[in-house]
């Protein structure tokens, strides 16, 4: 079921309407997960700035192992939504409830990183391993990272094994292994010693994604992870993101402008349209064919929704990781 708010009401004056959706994801993606145990629940959530809501209230549940695509035009509130559910911004109204075991990793847009810092690629990816919530050793066998490459959809499992060095001292050997494995997965191993600021846009994007991969998270929040990538690398990265869900059981929240490729891989979608005061939440396939989406993207964008998935989902894992 797809629920939409009326589009003719000013965003800041429509607190009476709300969106709610708890539909199971297509393809049985939600099977095996407890609907009573979501990673994150937003109830009557209103997001905005300076006390003013920019979108109507919304209700949604991010279940474990689901892939969410957040779409909408520039300035529609996508980043504000993400910041709010992560607890970086306060909701204007409503509430966000996070599971006690929520461990999020965040991939920012590269423009937010200050080039004055002489940070090397390996140092940067190792930042993904710094997490005070996880210092206990995990008795998990360490498999080889292999070299299947990003496009194969191989399980990027290095974040979920080994031990973190914690907040103090140098990175552990496991941290280094995980960081290097993540770099190999995004085909950026040769960049290890380069300065992040010296990389091209596409290289930097891959390294940003490698840091997210290296983290031991159960929720990956990715802000336009395929921006500045060529089409082949874009598909590879999307394959890796899907594999995070399929093989590690992680949830994904991805801000994207890739209506075709992004929505075809996602289980659920949230369309934000600040100009029309619309939030649309539901199964990705339904959002993909919703008139609100067509209105936004079809006339202007070559990325408009097409007839079907752009690429088959990645192959199932050879062995479960989690």
């Amino acid at each position, binding site marked *: 079921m797809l629920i939409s708010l009326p589009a003719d009401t000013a965003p800041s004056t429509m607190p009476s309407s709300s969106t709610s959706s708890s539909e199971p994801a297509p393809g049985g993606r939600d099977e095996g997960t407890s609907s009573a145990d979501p990673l994150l629940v937003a109830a009557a959530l209103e997001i905005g700035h300076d006390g003013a809501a920019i979108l109507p209230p919304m209700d949604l549940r991010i279940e474990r192992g689901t892939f969410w695509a957040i779409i909408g035009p520039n300035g529609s509130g996508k980043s504000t939504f993400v*910041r709010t559910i992560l*607890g970086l911004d306060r909701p204007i109204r409503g509430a966000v409830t996070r599971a006690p075991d929520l461990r999020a990793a*965040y991939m920012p847009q590269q423009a937010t990183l200050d080039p004055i810092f002489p940070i090397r690629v390996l140092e940067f990816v*190792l*930042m993904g391993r*710094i997490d005070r919530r996880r210092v206990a050793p995990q008795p998990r066998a360490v498999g080889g990272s292999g070299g299947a490459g990003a496009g194969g959809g191989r399980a990027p499992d290095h974040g979920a094994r080994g031990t973190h060095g914690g*907040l103090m001292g140098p990175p552990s050997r496991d941290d280094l292994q995980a960081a290097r494995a993540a770099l190999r997965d995004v085909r950026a191993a040769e960049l290890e010693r380069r300065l992040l600021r010296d990389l091209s846009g596409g290289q930097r994007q891959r390294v940003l994604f490698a*840091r997210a991969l290296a983290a031991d998270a159960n929720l990956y929040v990715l802000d336009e992870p395929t921006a500045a990538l060529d089409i082949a690398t874009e598909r590879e990265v999307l394959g890796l993101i899907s594999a995070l869900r399929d093989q590690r059981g992680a949830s994904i929240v991805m801000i994207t402008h890739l209506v075709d490729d992004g929505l075809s891989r996602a289980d659920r979608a949230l369309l934000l349209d600040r100009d029309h005061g619309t939030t649309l939440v539901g199964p990705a396939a339904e959002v993909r064919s919703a008139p609100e989406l067509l209105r936004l993207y079809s006339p202007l964008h070559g990325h408009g929704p097409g007839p079907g998935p752009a690429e088959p989902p990645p192959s199932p894992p050879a062995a479960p990781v989690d």
Partner: protein
Amino acid sequence: MPTDTPTFADFLANWPIFRDAVLTGAFAGALLGFLGVQVVLRRMVFASSAISQAAALGVALSFWIPSVIDPVGHAAAHSGNPGVHSSIPLLFDPVVWALGTSLVATLLFTVNPVRWRITGEGLLGIVFLASSAFAVIIGDRLTQETHDLAAILFGSAVVVRRSDLVLVTGAMVSLMGLHILFWRPLIFVAFDPVAARVQGLPVGKLNAFVFLAVGVGVAFSTRALGALPVFAFSVLPALAALLLTTRLSLVFALAAALGAMSGAGGYLVSFRAETPVGATQAALAVAVLLLASAWRTVARTLARSRGAAASASSSPTG
């Protein structure tokens, strides 16, 4: 008439007299140079200037308030040696007040100023200007300690107290040690605070540690050296180190070394050239920065010419 210019031999012969001042200058330079990397990378260069001015205001208040509360006792306490405050109660010790006002300024910087509709830069300017203005106004009201205050504001103090050396040494060891211990999260928080918060790092506490470290380092050093060299040490060695290397850990080490060199070397040069100590220390830090810039230019030119030669030799002839 021949001038009697002091020589390095004179300096060495009187080393016990200068030892504390030279060591304090070196240790303060090392601490501020080290912390200055965070200051520069976080683009808050003006913060150390504002904090050092706040520390100077604190010192001025420590002189002025007792003179208002108990003018007779205050004058008696300073009648023997105006520069010595051993008979002043701890409550009015200049270091205590410098620390207090520095920490107040530091705490202001940990607050997000957007809620007051001003930018971070604007907040720095307000603290700097308010501290400077009130320090000058209060200095004008003082009669006994005008020379002391001028020394603190402009860094012309020649002799430092043993307690200053102890405080600066303690601050250097503890603050640099803690910084090295929590090196990775501190860099992470400075570089990508949003991702650090998402990963559960205590971003507010780590930022507060950096600001407090700068505040404490500036407060102790300002009392000992003066505001001018303190501001110079917390900016210039870091800039020089960033020109000389792109390895971040080496940047911190190099900045500390260059800061120490400017602190101790500035004292030595001022002795030899008979120039004001604080200004000479700051000028030496500037000279180090210029040398680093020249070195980088030469190194880049050489690398480019080597690259051009290599490509010329590898390209097919004819």
